[in-house]
């Protein structure tokens, strides 16, 4: 007996939905077993990381705040990933987006209000897209692998941030700490519910997935993205330009990351310091895969990943495991979802050893 893989004529719809859920559940299960084995209360750790943030209502605003950038970045990246364009530099585009918003804010002096805030957010989008345009130019003009170039530019962006917040943009009243001066209320995003941290950016993150869904499902552009990704030769015959697709995918990915950075700056953190880049751009890649590159999937997966961030902080105080442990769970979820990808595209069949029994056994 051995296992045989048979290619499915169509990707399994059931598996597309079932595997992400199974990945999360399997991660929780393994978490309990492994943590118990190394002498940490596994059940408590897993409950605190995956459930406490959802069950304790006072944690909801933290989850929403963390989910917003993840969802927005993942939406943009999903477009690229669908078209087989691999922008892994979202972290850098996120940073540049926040810096552009800060630059506009500084240029406006003390000025604030709706117009200035809108200009700050839009400049964030433009900045993120511009940073992503560098790998796009290199790819379309010189065939430079966008995986490597977008990754390298992320680390350049981090140094740009370090230079600006430690030099020209350093808060003069900040006790020599490398950070920008905190935003005034006039330059910050409005808070939606008084007394919480829920800012306008979170509402944007909730609406955007539906916009993306509508656009990708109903427009020629959405079709183009899918065709270029799954059948590049057919796309060329159909008149879709692959260079144009690369450009669109990179600009949307970068623009969304820049938007997330600008919203995080003007809505949540209000100042940029060296801790501003916290890996959202990389975690969003997990989000886009866990969400199966679908806009609504990204929304749900963004919330799941945000829960693990908030839960990681809970577990840090309750079972005394380092904050980074949440990363183990995030990575495990991604490992499982990537591993289970094969179930979407292939059917697993059990085949008897042909020497003993030539007739193949049926079964899933």
């Amino acid at each position, binding site marked *: 007996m051995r296992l045989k893989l048979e290619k499915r004529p169509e990707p399994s719809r059931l598996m597309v939905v079932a595997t992400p859920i199974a990945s999360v559940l399997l991660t929780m299960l393994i978490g309990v077993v492994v943590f118990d084995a190394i002498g940490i209360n596994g059940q408590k750790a897993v409950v605190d990381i995956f459930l406490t943030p959802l069950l304790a209502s006072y944690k909801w605003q933290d989850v929403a705040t963390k989910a917003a950038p993840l969802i927005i970045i993942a939406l943009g990246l999903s477009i690229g990933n669908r078209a087989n364009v691999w922008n892994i530099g979202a972290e850098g585009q996120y940073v540049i987006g926040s810096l552009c918003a800060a630059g506009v804010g500084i240029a406006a002096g003390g000025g604030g209000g709706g117009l200035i805030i809108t200009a700050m957010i839009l400049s964030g989008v433009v900045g993120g897209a511009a940073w992503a345009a560098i790998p796009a130019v290199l790819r379309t003009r010189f*065939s430079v692998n966008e995986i490597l170039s977008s990754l390298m530019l992320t680390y350049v962006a981090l140094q740009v941030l370090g230079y600006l917040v430690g030099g020209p943009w350093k808060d003069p009243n900040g006790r020599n700490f490398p950070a920008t001066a905190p935003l005034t209320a006039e330059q910050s995003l409005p808070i939606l519910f008084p007394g919480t941290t829920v800012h306008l950016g979170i509402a944007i993150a909730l609406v955007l997935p539906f916009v993306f869904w509508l656009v990708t499902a109903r427009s020629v552009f959405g079709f183009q993205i899918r065709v270029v990704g799954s059948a590049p030769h057919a796309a060329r015959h159909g008149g879709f330009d692959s260079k144009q697709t690369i450009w669109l995918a990179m600009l949307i990915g970068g623009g969304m990351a820049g938007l997330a950075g600008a919203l995080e700056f003007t809505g949540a953190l209000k100042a940029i310091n060296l801790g501003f880049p916290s890996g959202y751009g990389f975690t969003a890649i997990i989000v886009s895969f866990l969400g199966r590159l679908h806009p609504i999937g990204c929304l749900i997966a963004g919330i799941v990943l945000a829960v693990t961030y908030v839960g990681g902080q809970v577990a840090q105080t309750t079972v005394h495991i380092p904050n980074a442990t949440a*990363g183990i769970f995030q990575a495990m979820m991604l490992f499982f979802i990537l591993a289970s*990808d094969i179930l979407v595209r292939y059917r697993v069949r059990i085949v008897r050893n042909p020497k003993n029994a030539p007739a193949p056994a049926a079964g899933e």
Partner: protein
Amino acid sequence: MSIEVLILTIITIVGISTPILLAGLGELVVEKAGVLNLGVEGMMLIGAIAGFATTVITGSPWLGMIGAAAAGALAALLFGFLVLALNSNQVATGLALTIFGTGLSSLIGLSFQGRIVAPFGSIFPPALSRDPFLKVLFGYSPIVYFALIMVVLVTWFLKSTRGGLILRAVGENDLSAHSIGYSVVGVRYAAIAFGGAMAGIGGAYFSLVITPMWAERMTAGRGWIALALVVFASWRAPRLLVGAYFFGLLMWLELYAKGGGLNGLPIIPAIPSQFWAAMPYLMTVVVLALISVRDRAGSNAPACLGKPFLTSN
């Protein structure tokens, strides 16, 4: 600049270059086999804590290095299983490995915080290793010489052996290599394990040689510089050696510009430290563009890099 300061500077640069040289050499072999493993930083951190833990338990930094290599290889094989057996996406799997390694090393490191281990002794007599001038040649950790020997071995393996030829064939045209009868998957597993072992040793260089202690995220992003280095060296082992020391010079200039440098050096014009820190990545992007502009056929990038190996059945 006095000669003493120059010697100290060279020793510092060689020291900070060695981890990226080790990890880069491993990744070079992996990429030559057609696989892109972005998990270098994660494997380095796993190697750093595994090497440190082994040294604390056994008391021998040599066993520590072996433990680091084994742990790095094991982590790499997890990546290998996903991308080779299950055909998962290499980019996403590699990034997951980095996130995984960062978390795992922090968790294991909890029990080892604040402990200190005995460093490596010199393999040369004190007359050589302590001599104020000769120490520029003989005053390093044994791992520095190990890295240099590995450069020679990897160069020789890739260029002059049958195994190296097969490995390059697998990276250049996996379907042809498969049809001649070579095991594409087998070669890639071996390359990935080697890459993991080298990254593990590179990581343990931080916890056993540079600091001798454990700190969370102590490799500080050097895994990403190692990835850049492979591209910067355009996938050639001898160039990787030169590139590693050049990147080491840039990293040293960054430290110097931050104000933690040595006294008695000529004042480097007030260039911010971030400029030097960004240079390895910027230059790598430029090199990427130059490689592509030049004769495409003469480019040294493995043709199958990052692509899944799918036979038609």
